[in-house]
């Protein structure tokens, strides 16, 4: 792990032609792997538009995308399945990315973005919104959830940051646990006193891609885009951070700056994702491990791979949830855990997981 990371960060010159050729070979393999994963994602996205309670032939799908609404089929494609698919792609990618960041920043293979209190913050805000305004309109709840996620993350940051070195991994986890516990108890009090709120919240709290209009996608997209750019820009610093704070500092990395920017990116990515689809934790936890098994620990490839894998996992789970129990649906948040956990456990048993 050490050697690959160092050569990726500071570009230690490789000696002779063989070294350089091996590096370009590896890069070519990674690139073709990434392209393959992207192709798979496109395939899943096409399936996502075509598959559902009402099967629509591909020609019809294409016609609807190009010519607009003429029939019922067209409006199913444009108003229901297209936003759902786009949402799955952007949210899945964001969650995968946020998971990598979180694990790198805390140097803890078990960290998921929920540790920052983002999920609980968003949930508590949505409960308040439902309780006070009786509204579950998605484009109204999104802003509440986003504000709640941001506030909770800020509180965790504040509690977890110490002295000059910035937020340490253990303190961050403790602060996240504390804030999450308080918020979750508040949620349970409100839902106990108000059965009507509980009735709506239990569906939001599962995490689902269904029923969101296109406006939600456009509302969260700027935040997700900003977070993704920030995260991808940090990949070099994250590699250095993996070597430990002291080594990273010796290599010239601003450790505190990296942590603060990274946390900002996680808050943007995960806050917007949770606001859009509800709390889905498993993608952020498991996808980085799956991607790391293919790419190794270097973040330059790990970040894009995790984006593509996250999107594929979430969208694939959504499709599976649509077809597995007709005529009903199972929410994507549930299917991700059920499909993903066995893979995760199998990986743990093969001991590849410990290599962070």
């Amino acid at each position, binding site marked *: 792990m050490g050697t690959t990371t160092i050569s990726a960060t500071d570009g230690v010159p490789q000696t002779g032609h063989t070294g350089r050729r091996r590096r370009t070979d590896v890069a070519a393999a990674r690139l073709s792997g990434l392209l393959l994963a992207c192709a798979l994602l496109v395939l899943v996205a096409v399936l996502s538009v075509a598959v559902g309670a009402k099967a629509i032939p591909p020609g019809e799908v294409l016609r609807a995308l190009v010519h607009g609404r003429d029939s019922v089929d067209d409006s199913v494609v444009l108003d229901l399945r297209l936003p759902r698919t786009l949402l799955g792609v952007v949210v899945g990618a964001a969650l995968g990315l946020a998971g990598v960041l979180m694990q790198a920043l805390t140097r803890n293979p078990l960290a998921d973005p929920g540790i920052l209190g983002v999920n609980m913050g968003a949930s508590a805000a949505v409960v308040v919104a439902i309780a006070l305004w009786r509204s579950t309109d998605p484009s109204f709840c999104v802003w509440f959830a986003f504000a709640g996620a941001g506030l909770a993350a800020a509180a965790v940051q504040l509690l977890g940051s110490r002295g000059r070195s910035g937020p340490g991994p253990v303190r961050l986890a403790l602060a996240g646990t504390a804030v999450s*516990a308080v918020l979750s108890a508040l949620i349970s*009090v409100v839902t106990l006193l108000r059965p009507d709120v509980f009735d709506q919240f239990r569906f939001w709290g599962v995490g689902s891609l269904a029923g969101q209009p296109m406006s939600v996608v456009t509302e969260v997209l700027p935040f997700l885009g900003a977070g993704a750019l920030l995260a991808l820009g940090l990949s070099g610093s994250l590699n250095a951070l993996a070597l430990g704070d002291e080594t990273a500092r010796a290599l010239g990395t601003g450790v505190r700056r990296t942590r603060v920017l990274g946390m900002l990116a996680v808050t943007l990515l995960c806050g917007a994702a949770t606001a859009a689809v509800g709390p889905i934790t498993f993608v952020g936890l498991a996808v980085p491990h799956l991607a790391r098994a293919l790419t190794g620990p270097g973040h330059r490839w790990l970040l894009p791979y995790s984006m593509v894998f996250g999107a594929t996992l979430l969208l694939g789970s959504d499709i599976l949830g649509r077809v597995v129990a007709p005529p009903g649906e199972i*929410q994507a948040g*549930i299917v991700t*855990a059920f499909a993903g956990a066995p893979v995760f456990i199998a990986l743990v*048993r093969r001991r590849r997981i410990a290599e962070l």
Partner: protein
Amino acid sequence: MNAPTTLSPLSAPETALRGRVLRLYGGRVSLRWRPRTVLVCLALTAGCLVVGALGLTTGAYRVPLPAVLACLTGHGTGADSFIVTSLRLPRLVCALLAGGALGMSGAVFQSMSRNPLGSPDIVGFTSGAASGAVVEIVLFHGGPYATAAGSLAGGLVTALAVGLLAAGRGAAVGYRVVLVGIGVSAMLTSLTAYLLTRASLYEAQDAQIWLIGSLNSASWAVVTPLAAALAVLVPATVLAARALDWLELGEDTARGLGVPVGRARLVLAVCATGLAAVTTAAVGPITFVALAAPHLCRPLVRSSGALLVPAGVMGALLLAASDFAAQRVLPGTELPVGALTGVLGGLYLCRLLVARRRAARA
């Protein structure tokens, strides 16, 4: 699910065997004890008595203390006697027993995993118990006993499954247990959430209250089996916990000192999981008592050992006091005690972090 994610050793193991030794039967039975620990335990017990007296005397119907004492000794009058011995006393006893068991279980898990956030969650126990209970409530419409049995079965089967899945050779078994526990917990948590969306509103709320943890339905029928189970488990845990002081020095050191590490860990895990299991079956998964009780004891006792007994008494005091407050904080509503322990425990942890930050700056 977030709780047990940090693997960081507790503060430096300065357990060093201190204190006085009490020898009985010509040295065949000996007991190490520290005056400070005994004093702390006595003070905490006194706290329990005060909370108990308050709980038994006050409420919607006031019973003066002498009348309560008369009821307890069997000389009470009609209404007084019914309210004290059939309504308030079982609830109080249940809180003390459950809190004590949770505190001890938390102390064992934190010490054994050398993780300040250790709890029965790390073997997937809590999520398994929750799934078992919710399956029972939602799918089979079971009553309180069936729910308790469901949670017990769910929790134990899950813990066993995690243990088996994580078993294997090599040094990193403890680490693998945590990882497998997280994977299994994720599956079970989403199963619970799914069942809640499929249930009718009434059943879902029933399940939700169970999931928060509540003493509202505590009666002698709940207390008796709990007390019987604890009568076996508590002595077993105390005996097994003698190995904890050495395990805290690290597995290799403990092995070098002649402790059968694998067997000691297994026995301890079974005992502590059992304590959590019977408590959860009786009152639901009450958060934070198991986590907070050992942390609250440590500065009082000023020792970094396992603190099994003080943590147990502290847990009993915490839960009894929380339940006393939960019944009175919102007039007209009996808040489940789990909601209150969550808020209080979370705020306490926040305070702890702020205090440490100040200390680090100074």
